[in-house]
């Protein structure tokens, strides 16, 4: 990662740090005297300030410094943490995020306002003002030491053990000017009493040249406080020319060498062994590149197995080739699974964000709201979690704004005053199941119907199943809020939520009981990159149908084919299912095969049959997205590359089911 930009790394890290601080603050708001949490918040702010200053985020460093100071006082017991303080620091988090993301311009007023509130939230004794930096005493007259210095010093006995190397100090002195060094060995004990790690030698140094006192003091900056040093300008000492130049000690000769301890052989192994929970941060795009490679490998592997089974190679070669092909298939599939796991992150990160949301919503609506979460360890593809955040935020807002009642209403209805929003995540087959449940008033069917009628979505009095009625809320622009609060009415409707979920090839479902609450269930595929598909042929083209959507395959007999011309409905046990002739839909112009097949697919509880010429079999499908040019193409959600190198389009199930259902509705209307 050495080619990485430290500023970018800082932004990522600061984001994580802010998340951690925020979680600690939210926990702290429930347990105001938890010392561990107070320390965690302080440490987080401290780190943020330190690295912020390092990377030139001065506004962030200064702002964070005030918050850190406040928490330092709390930590040291000057005053307790209060709900108000936690709340102010939480809003400061948002400001810090803005400072991390931007260049800090135009945010001064916001920052000042938050600091004002911080000041107000603190007891008077705890005013947050930085102690003025004490300036060093004025430098002494420049003329001092113009001719040189006489210097006599003794390091503290612990200096050697603590890493100070007297020889490099002497080297530094030599760099300042001409230097005469005499070692003072008077303090050395007799050899049997000598402790080799103690520094007992003193030095007498004569430095000639124009040297500032600070330059010499700078050499000893780390040991200054613990050492004995006499420093006198040369003019005031008698030059000991009679004594002659003292012999310079051979470097190291008068000093016992530090004992060398052999590194135990096991250490290399110990260093290599990963610590429990050790992790490596990998940029997402590198995973994507690796994913692409694995995808290509899957394709090559399928070409190989096709060749192995083709009979083009002699019988003896074929056996050998087939065994290689099978071996590679095993490796590729293991590699693919490993790759998938690499992209997985626990939904805990996602759920964590919602605690803050609930905190803010409770404050804004004046309702008491409790967030419960379950299954936070459930892992989902990183891209999926990112794209799920907005829809879930919207569903939680809805639950808090429309679903949950005020404490008074709840008490009157015999419920606890505190409303409850529950988030759960669980794996179910190749999908992850996320539910958002509130114990509020539930969806009022009459109001939904009235609204749908007044918006012209349904005819007055039109018969609708309960499921159909509830699905109305996913229509664009549908809103049942009697009055628009600052939470709703942001132009994002449930239709957007539904579309986003469907974009992830997922589904959304509602269950709601009036007076008891509502549950929204999201089903999302674990990963977006590879799916199991059913490969089918229509005329000369191959197409992939996501296997998860396939319910069954049946034969369309020639007789049925003739009978159903024009109506396109088949009797499937006790239900009539509309079907689409892909020959017609794709306008192939070719004659259909004699024995056509119907693949029955389902989505969102609706079924549609697709008539194809041939079912080739299941196919591991690496999804390649379509280019921008094909943005307006419906019916297809992507493409994949087959073993022989040709391209197959992946059918968009949602779209096809919708098309089929519309046709059915038209046919019904015609009678």
């Amino acid at each position, binding site marked *: *990662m050495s080619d990485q930009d430290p500023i970018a790394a800082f932004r990522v890290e600061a984001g994580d740090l802010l998340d951690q601080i925020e979680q600690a603050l939210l926990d702290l708001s429930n347990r105001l005297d938890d010392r561990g949490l107070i320390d965690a918040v302080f440490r987080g702010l401290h780190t943020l300030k330190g690295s912020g200053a390092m990377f030139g985020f001065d506004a962030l460093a200064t702002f964070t410094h005030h918050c850190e100071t406040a928490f330092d006082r709390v930590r040291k017991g000057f005053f307790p943490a209060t709900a108000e303080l936690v709340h102010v620091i939480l809003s400061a988090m948002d400001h810090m995020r803005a400072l991390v993301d931007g260049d800090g311009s135009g945010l001064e007023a916001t920052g000042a306002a938050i600091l004002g509130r911080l000041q107000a939230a603190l007891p008077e004794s705890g005013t947050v003002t930085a102690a003025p930096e004490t300036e060093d005493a004025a430098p002494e007259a420049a003329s001092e030491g113009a001719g040189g210095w006489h210097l006599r010093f003794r390091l503290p006995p612990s200096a050697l053990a603590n890493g100070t190397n007297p020889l490099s100090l002497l080297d530094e002195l030599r760099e300042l000017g001409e230097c005469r060094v005499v070692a003072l060995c008077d303090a050395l004990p007799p050899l049997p009493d000598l402790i080799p790690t103690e520094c007992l030698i003193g030095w007498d140094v004569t430095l000639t040249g124009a040297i500032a006192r600070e330059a010499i003091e700078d050499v000893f900056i780390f040991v200054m*406080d613990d050492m004995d040093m006499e420093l006198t300008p040369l003019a005031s000492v008698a030059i000991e020319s009679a004594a002659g130049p003292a012999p310079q000690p051979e470097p190291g000769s008068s000093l016992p060498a530090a004992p060398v301890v052999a590194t135990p052989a096991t250490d290399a192994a110990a260093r290599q062994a990963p610590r429990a929970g050790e992790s490596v941060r990998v940029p997402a795009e590198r995973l994507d590149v690796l994913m692409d490679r694995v995808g290509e490998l899957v394709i090559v592997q399928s070409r190989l197995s096709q060749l192995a089974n083709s009979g083009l190679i002699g019988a003896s070669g074929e056996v050998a080739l087939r065994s290689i092909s099978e071996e590679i298939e095993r490796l590729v599939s293991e590699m693919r699974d490993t790759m998938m796991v690499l992209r997985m992150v626990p939904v805990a990160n996602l759920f964590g964000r919602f605690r803050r949301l609930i905190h803010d919503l409770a404050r804004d609506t004046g309702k008491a709201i409790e967030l419960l979460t379950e299954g936070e360890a459930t892992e989902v593809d990183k891209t999926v979690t990112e794209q799920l955040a907005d829809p879930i935020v919207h569903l939680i807002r809805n639950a808090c704004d429309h679903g949950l009642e005020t404490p008074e209403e709840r008490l009157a209805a015999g419920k606890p005053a505190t409303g409850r929003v529950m988030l759960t995540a669980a794996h179910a087959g190749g999908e992850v199941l996320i539910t958002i449940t509130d114990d509020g008033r539930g969806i009022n069917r009459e109001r939904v119907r009235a609204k749908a009628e007044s918006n012209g979505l349904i005819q007055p009095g039109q018969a609708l199943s309960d499921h159909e009625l509830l699905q109305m809320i996913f229509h664009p622009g549908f809103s049942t809020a009697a009055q628009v609060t600052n939470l709703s009415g942001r132009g994002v409707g449930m239709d957007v939520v539904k579309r986003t979920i469907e974009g992830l090839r997922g589904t959304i479902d509602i269950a709601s009981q009036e007076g008891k609450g509502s549950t929204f269930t999201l089903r999302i595929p674990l990963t977006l990159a590879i799916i199991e598909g059913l490969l089918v042929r229509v005329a000369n083209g191959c197409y992939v149908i996501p296997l998860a959507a396939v319910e069954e395959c049946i034969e369309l007999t020639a007789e049925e084919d003739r009978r159903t011309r024009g109506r396109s409905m088949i009797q499937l046990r006790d239900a009539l299912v509309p079907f689409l002739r892909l020959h017609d839909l794709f306008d192939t112009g070719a004659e259909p095969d004699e024995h056509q097949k119907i693949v029955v697919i389902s989505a969102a509880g609706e079924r549609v049959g697709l008539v194809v010429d041939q079912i080739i079999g299941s196919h591991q499908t690496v999804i390649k997205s379509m280019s921008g040019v094909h943005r307006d193409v419906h019916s297809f959600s992507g493409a994949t590359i087959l073993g022989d190198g040709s391209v197959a389009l992946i059918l968009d199930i949602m779209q096809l089911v919708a098309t089929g259902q519309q046709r059915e509705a038209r046919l019904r209307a015609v009678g």
Partner: protein
Amino acid sequence: MTASILTVDDSSSLRLATRIALTGAGYTVTEACDGLEGLGKAQGQKFDMIITDLNMPNMDGLSMIREIRKLPVQMGTPIIFLTTESDDALKQEARAAGATGWLVKPFQPDQLLRIAKKVLGR
């Protein structure tokens, strides 16, 4: 042989910046993300110098310095700590724990290199 330096900091961006500066000057850098990991690495290998933050989770810098000073293998290894304040009491405490010197954050790469050169003597 190039001098090997252990850097201990819970901030990965700071470790990155430190490493870029030090490796650029030819030093070999090993990293640890907290005191506990730092101590573990110090137990396994003799370093020519250790640079550590003080405020860290799991084991803070002062405790780590005290523990490292008990290790025969790190006898006399210079330890530089990073601090945000020019706090004399803190410096005193760190030196009593066995630190060799300090570097005040924020620092520029050349300040870091100057300290490394001063302490390593090369």
